[in-house]
């Protein structure tokens, strides 16, 4: 039998020429422009800068030691702290919104969801700029709050950590609502009625039945808020002022104005390591991804046999 030629026609499991040909473009592209640069970041962290803003030859631990200095470490902690606060606020606001939309008539849900997404269509920088206008000392918000007597005269809304948190929440919130809504939409709301029927209070039913039911949505929401928040650069740069600098700013400054590429690489490498932690935890929590990892392990085992 010409079984080899025939297996070309219908594929089950094994790889074929057609598969390779169609996989090559994305695979090779992402290897060159994503995988290699990522590895390069870790490699260059062990180099030093040359006086012209380039990268010197020779390997060293000096750069790594440099970025573990006290002032950098405090920026690390601040970045993690701000990201956690932003994530918490996004969940706190996102879960009720997802819960509410999921309970609406299916005909209108799409439009409610769209209403949440539409602000995303505004350019990222313009959204930040809009907040600068709004939070400006002479801007609408501060003057209104002053007029209402809600804030003291000497409180400024812009160029501080509070502004960074507000604007980051603003840019991340729709991304938190989407996965929570997606999970809530699939949630069987009669389970809450069942819990109520068995004597649970509304809040208890929400906490013990609804929240565990949308766990996957919450995990995704945490990921899609926490990670960008950790790498946030433009927001602290534009609304954060001197006290609001985060890790992303340090990397950008080291990459442009105050050029020292190995130091920027070392900071970026540390940032990637920090981000790996929640990603790995989520990966292990989610079966689908877990299956991919076990598959990888199995194929590694196959090749050693």
């Amino acid at each position, binding site marked *: 039998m010409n079984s080899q030629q025939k297996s070309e026609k219908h594929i089950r499991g094994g790889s074929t020429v057609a598969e390779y040909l169609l996989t090559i473009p994305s695979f090779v592209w992402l290897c060159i422009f994503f995988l290699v640069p990522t590895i390069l970041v870790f490699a260059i962290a062990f180099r030093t800068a040359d006086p012209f803003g380039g990268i010197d030859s020779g390997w060293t631990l000096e750069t790594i030691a440099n970025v573990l200095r006290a002032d950098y470490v405090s920026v690390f902690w601040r970045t993690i702290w701000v990201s956690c606060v932003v994530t918490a606020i996004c969940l706190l606001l996102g879960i009720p919104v997802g819960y509410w939309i999921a309970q609406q008539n299916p005909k209108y849900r799409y439009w409610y969801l769209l209403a949440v997404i539409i602000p995303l269509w505004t350019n990222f920088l313009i959204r930040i700029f809009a907040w*600068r206008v709004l939070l400006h000392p002479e801007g609408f918000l501060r003057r209104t709050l002053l007029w209402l007597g809600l804030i003291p005269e000497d409180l400024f809304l812009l160029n501080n950590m509070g502004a960074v948190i507000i604007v980051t929440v603003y840019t991340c919130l729709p991304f938190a609502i989407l996965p929570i809504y997606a999970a809530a939409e699939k949630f069987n709301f009669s389970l809450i009625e069942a819990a109520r029927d068995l004597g649970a209070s509304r809040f208890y039913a929400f906490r013990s039945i609804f929240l565990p039911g949308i766990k996957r949505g919450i995990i995704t929401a945490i990921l899609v808020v926490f990670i960008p928040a950790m790498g946030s650069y433009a927001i602290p740069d534009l609304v954060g002022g001197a006290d609001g600098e985060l890790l992303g700013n340090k990397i950008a400054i080291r990459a442009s104005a105050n050029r020292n590429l190995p130091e920027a690489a070392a900071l970026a490498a540390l940032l990637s390591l920090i981000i790996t932690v929640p990603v790995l935890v989520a990966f292990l929590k989610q079966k689908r991804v877990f299956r991919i990892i076990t598959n990888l392990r199995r194929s590694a085992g196959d090749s050693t046999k």
Partner: protein
Amino acid sequence: MKSRYTSLLVTLLVLAFMYMPIVMLVSQSFNASRYGGKWTGFSLKWYEALFNDYSVINAATNTIVIGLAATLFATIIGACAAWTLNKYKRSKLQTLHYGLVYAPLVVPDVLMGISLLLMFVSMKVDLGLTTVILAHITFCVSFVTFTVLARLQDFDFNLIQAAEDLGAGNARIFLKIILPLLGPGIAAGAMMAFTLSMDDFVVTFFVGGPGSTTLPVKVYSMMKHGPPAIINALSVIFMALTFTVAIAGQFLTRKKF
């Protein structure tokens, strides 16, 4: 009923929070006052100033050129990737492939920007339009792939067998079945890519050079140095542009076969 009111209240607050800055911005762009705040009368002078600024026009051109180039390549690459990821699910190569396409989605822009910058510098490539386009293709590919993949998951592969069964060859199957059914999905992916490319500031900021200033980068430098009122006007025009693309994308994703 109490809890339902709580969630309704939060939803209303969130919507107010989401729209407040945008409404503010649009109204300010028509304000004659230079620094905003006090309303001193309706004016189009900031729009006029904008259209007389050569560098803004230039940045807009760059944005569109980069967007179109990135969209074209990312769509082709992403559509192929989605097809293989869906069709050859069980193969080990695709498990790896999936990871590789998925990873850029969980990496913050700053990391993607710095890593590409490091690579271009190490390879002594001059930063400019080309490097920006290469970078944009890279982050767009993953988004296009997952957009098309979502459509593919609804795609009934029996249709291909049915067409084959009725005597159709590969070319006819592609033209009559695959293209009409996947076209909207691929177009939605392309819209997504164009929107993302137009929206990107961070990666462009890192890998850009002289002559590759895009609108977001222009807005950034104006925010740092320029008069705020012109930015209002620029923002509104930019917003109108993004909305057009995004609405078109929405229609394509919503439309059933």
